[in-house]
Structures are given as C-alpha cells and as structure tokens.
C-alpha cells in the first residue's frame, strides 16, 4: 500500500522509507516562522536552551504582523523584542513594518515555502501553505523554539482525509465557499489530528488565492494540515518566486485514505458561517437581510490580489451603505502596490472604504476595526468565535470577498447578485 502526499513528505523528512498514520517521527524542518505575539514566548524558550545561534539563519522568518504597526506601548515592546532577537541572532528573514505583510501570504509570495517541504509556524493558520504541496502546520512557541534550535521537530503522522471537489464551481462560488461548505459538513472537529487533502477537477478552476483560502481553513476543522498536490498552475506560480531548489512530491496512486468525501461544486451556493462557529454554515440566502455594521476584506484567508479584484468588481461605481463601514486590508505591500496599479484602491476609496496597511489587526480583534457591543461584522477572515473581533456581544459572519463587498453596499447581509443585477 502506498503513501499519501502528507505521509510521503514526512517520511522523506524523517529519513525513513515509509511512515504509517500514528507513527511518532522526528523530522527535519525546512523553514519556520513566528509572529509578534508568538515570537516573544519562543525567544524566551530558545534562550533557555542556551545555543549561540539558530539552526540556520536563512530558514527562520520573524514577521511582525498581528499588532504591527504597534497600537500601544505594550505591543511596541513585543515588536521590539522581535527586532532585537532578529538582530542578535542575525535572522535573515526579519521584515520591518512597511516591508512586512500578513506572514502566511508574504512568505509564500516571497518563495520561502516550497512544494515538498516541511514548514512549521507559531501560528495556527500555517496550514495555508499546503496549497503549494508542502506539509505545513501550526505549532506553539515552545515547539517553534525547539525548531529554531535544532531544525527538527517530532510529529505524529496523521491519518489523511481526502476531499474531492467535482465539477466547475457555480457562479460566485469561490475557494472560501468550498472550504466553509466542508467545515459545515464535517464540523469544527471533523478532521481533528488529521491531514485534509483536497483534490478534484474543480481546483483547476480556482485561482491560487482561492486555493490558499481552502488550505488556510483546514485548522478550523481541527486538522493538522491542509494539502493539495502541486499541479502545473502551482508550479508555474512557485517557479519564479522560489528562493531554494525544490522537488515536488505526489501521492502514490494506491495511497490509503482514512475517508474520502466528494462534493459537486456546480451545485453549490455562496455560503456564510454564522456566529459563533466556522462550523455553522448556511447559504447566503438564509442569512440575507441581517443588518451589518462592518465589513472586512483582508487577512491570510482572503487578503490576496484575487480577493481584492472580486471585491472591486462589485464595488466599482457603487458606495458603501451609510450605516456600514468597510475595511479593506491588502495582505502584503506587494499586493497593496498591485492593487494600486490596477486601480482597485481608487475603487475602494471612491466607495467610501478605509484601506489599511498590511496587518492581521482586525481578524483577532487586535486593532483597526475592533467591534463594539452588539455590532455585526461580515468578515473574510477565518474565525468567528465569541469576542473574536472585539466585544463578547459582537457577532461575526464569515464569507468570501464577493459577499462581504455586496453586504457593504447593501448595509445588510447580501448575495452578490443583489448588487450586480
């Protein structure tokens, strides 16, 4: 019996012929990163180990993205800790505000995570990079410190669940809708401890941005990693960016999956996750009409150029409803510049949106768009837990960028067709 994509990558990095689900292995890690929240704890633990250097200064990234640009003195101190650690250990990939973006989007964009590699990040959405055909998983700060010290980490080899997307996605159905659909189907612990492998001809109809949206949210079903086989589109996207040589890995044809589920994407509708779980998913029509105070387009889930293009298509020549505010945050400086050159930023400003500097701020209720009591937000982010974006009595609906933009125009939760028809 052959191995799944996840098993093959892990076996290669553990230096063994084969691994089986449940095996505990010690694997080589190709690249790792921390942000300004998880970094300070990781630095403290790394110092306790007492080594004079990280395992490889070229294979560690520190990205100030959560509370950066700093919102207060405490967060400034955390960002300072990061800057000082980067300087002390001569970390190659430290990016100061202005050159830093949302870590997951930026590291992939810069060709620092590659097909066939093992990548760990002290951030749960590290599973995003699985869209490139990498084994990519989120860990805590202590695990990250261990990786910075040794370039290795222990893993339990996960069972693989395979999700096959058939057909051509129906109008307005994006990668975000596909993954929300799956989480709604299997629940927030439906893939606990497992690898979620996504496949099927529908993926070929998606942009790279949409593929990243899918693997990004594997953690919301409890998965260890989300992953896709790197097809020609992925390899074309990676090739001009790659900072290192890489070797794509593909699953064996007789690989064994713990379960296989198939979805006909031609029959799907755009969906939203209603408060307060990414697992409570309904067609947009079921929630349409809910008055909305804020819409937010951005984050490691949906802050890419493709997402901004979709939003601009709906917002062009229209204005945000008077009772609603719209935040648009390009995920990286490169995306910001691209959006400016394509005229998207002008569309957002003309519509009455605020366009922010790259940051994770609003997604976690950190800064730049914190919700007051009773307020409702439609967000393109990945989590809508109680108090996630602010007051514990605020409520968050998760959607793709088209629904968020349409909702901003209508001032109430709306299907894109309501605006464009």
């Amino acid at each position: 019996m052959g191995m799944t994509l996840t098993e093959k990558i892990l076996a290669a990095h553990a230096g063994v012929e084969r691994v089986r689900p449940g095996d505990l292995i010690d694997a080589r890690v190709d690249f790792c990163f921390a942000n300004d929240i998880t970094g300070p704890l990781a630095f403290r633990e790394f110092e306790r180990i007492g080594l004079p250097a990280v395992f490889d200064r070229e294979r560690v990234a520190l990205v100030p993205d959560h509370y950066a640009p700093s919102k207060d003195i405490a967060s400034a101190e955390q960002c300072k800790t990061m800057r000082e650690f980067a300087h002390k250990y001569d970390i190659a990939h430290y990016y100061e505000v202005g050159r830093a973006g949302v870590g997951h989007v930026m590291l992939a964009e810069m060709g620092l995570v590659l097909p066939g590699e093992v990548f760990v990040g002290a951030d749960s959405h590290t599973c995003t990079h699985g869209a490139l055909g990498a084994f990519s998983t989120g860990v805590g700060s202590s695990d990250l410190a261990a990786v910075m010290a040794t370039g290795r980490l222990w893993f339990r080899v996960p069972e693989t669940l395979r999700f096959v997307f058939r057909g051509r996605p129906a109008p307005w159905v994006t990668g975000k809708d596909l993954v929300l659909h799956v989480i709604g189907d299997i629940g927030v612990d439906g893939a606990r401890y497992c690898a979620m492998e996504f496949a099927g001809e529908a993926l070929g109809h998606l942009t790279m941005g949409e593929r990243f949206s899918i693997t990004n949210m594997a953690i919301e079903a409890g998965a260890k990693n989300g992953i896709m086989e790197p097809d020609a589109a992925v390899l074309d996207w990676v090739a001009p960016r790659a900072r290192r040589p890489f070797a794509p890995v593909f699953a064996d044809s007789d690989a064994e999956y713990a379960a296989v589920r198939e979805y006909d994407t031609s029959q799907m509708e755009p969906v939203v996750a209603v408060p307060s779980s990414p697992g409570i998913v309904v067609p947009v029509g079921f929630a349409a009409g809910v008055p909305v105070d804020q819409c937010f387009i951005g984050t490691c889930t949906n802050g890419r150029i493709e997402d901004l293009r979709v939003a601009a298509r709906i917002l062009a020549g229209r204005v945000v409803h008077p009772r609603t505010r719209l935040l648009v945050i390009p995920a990286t400086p490169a995306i910001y510049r691209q959006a400016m050159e394509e005229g998207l930023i002008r569309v957002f400003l003309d519509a009455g949106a605020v366009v922010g500097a790259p940051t994770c701020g609003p997604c976690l209720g950190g800064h730049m768009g914190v919700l007051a009591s009773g307020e409702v937000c439609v967000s393109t982010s990945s989590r809508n837990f109680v108090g996630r974006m602010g007051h514990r009595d605020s409520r968050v609906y998760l959607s793709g960028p088209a629904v968020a933009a349409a909702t901003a125009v209508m001032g109430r939760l709306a299907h894109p067709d309501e605006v464009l028809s």
Partner: protein
Amino acid sequence: MIFCGTAWKVGDHVDTDAIIPARHLVTTDPEVLARYCFEDLDPTLAARIRPGDILVAGENFGQGSSREHAPIAIKAAGIACVVARSYARIFYRNAFNIGLPLLECPDLHAATESGDRLSVDNATGRIVNETRGTTHTAAPLPEFMRQLIAAGGIIEYVRRQVSGRKVGT
C-alpha cells in the same frame, strides 16, 4: 502524581479566544494572562479558581489558535490538571510543552458538576469524583508523551539532546 481539587466544568469546543482573548496578548506575563482566563466565557471564573483545582471540559477543548498563552493562562490561574473528552491538536502539544497535564476521559464530563471534589491520578488515569462517589478511567498517555513530561517539557527535552550532542563531539 495525584491531584485533588474542586472541579470547574466548561462545555464542548471551548476555543482559545474564550480561554484568553487576543486583546490581552500584548503581554507574556502568566499572572496577567491568568487574570483574564475565560473572560469571554465566564468573567467570574478565573477569580473563583483555587490553586490545585481541576478543569473538566467537553469535546475539542482548546480549538483555534496556536497561542501558547492559552495553556499558560490556565496553569497560572491555578488549574493543576485538565480532564476533557477530547482536545484540539495544537493546544494538546502546547499544554504538554509548558507542563500543564491533560487527560482524556469519555465519561467524567457528564458525571461532574462545577464544585465537585475530584481526585485525579495522573499516572494510572484513575479519577474519583468524591462528591458523587463515581470512578472514571482516563486513557493512558502515549509513551512518548510520558517521556516528554519526564524530561520537563519540549525545551528540557531539546536541552538534553543539544548538550548530549556537545558531549559526543
């Protein structure tokens, strides 16, 4: 090790935002994090926890973020040990890494109310609800997790590996 303390019960799918809201992640000080533990779930809970108490949780405890601040906050609030029906993956690793013992038990949650007296034997997995006179058994820990605990968590484990390498060369 045997833990004896008052049970505090929470439900299914308690997430890391409920354990420690992100607005407090501008510090790594355990005492400050402890003060805000479970703030959006039950703002009075942290103040009622006494050192040595036991948290009894439902399914998928700790879902969501990789923030290690979550198990740190629980430990610093005084919780000696968590017994849940199941855990989210990253939280499970993080808790062991910082020395917060976790046990998995299928039936304790239904048989326990907040305020009950519990005793938990971490080594054997035997749990007694002294208030109700019921006995429960937690799943034994995998051998590797026992080694990690014996080593004092991932950092001590790595320290030993690193110093062993130095001796060897």
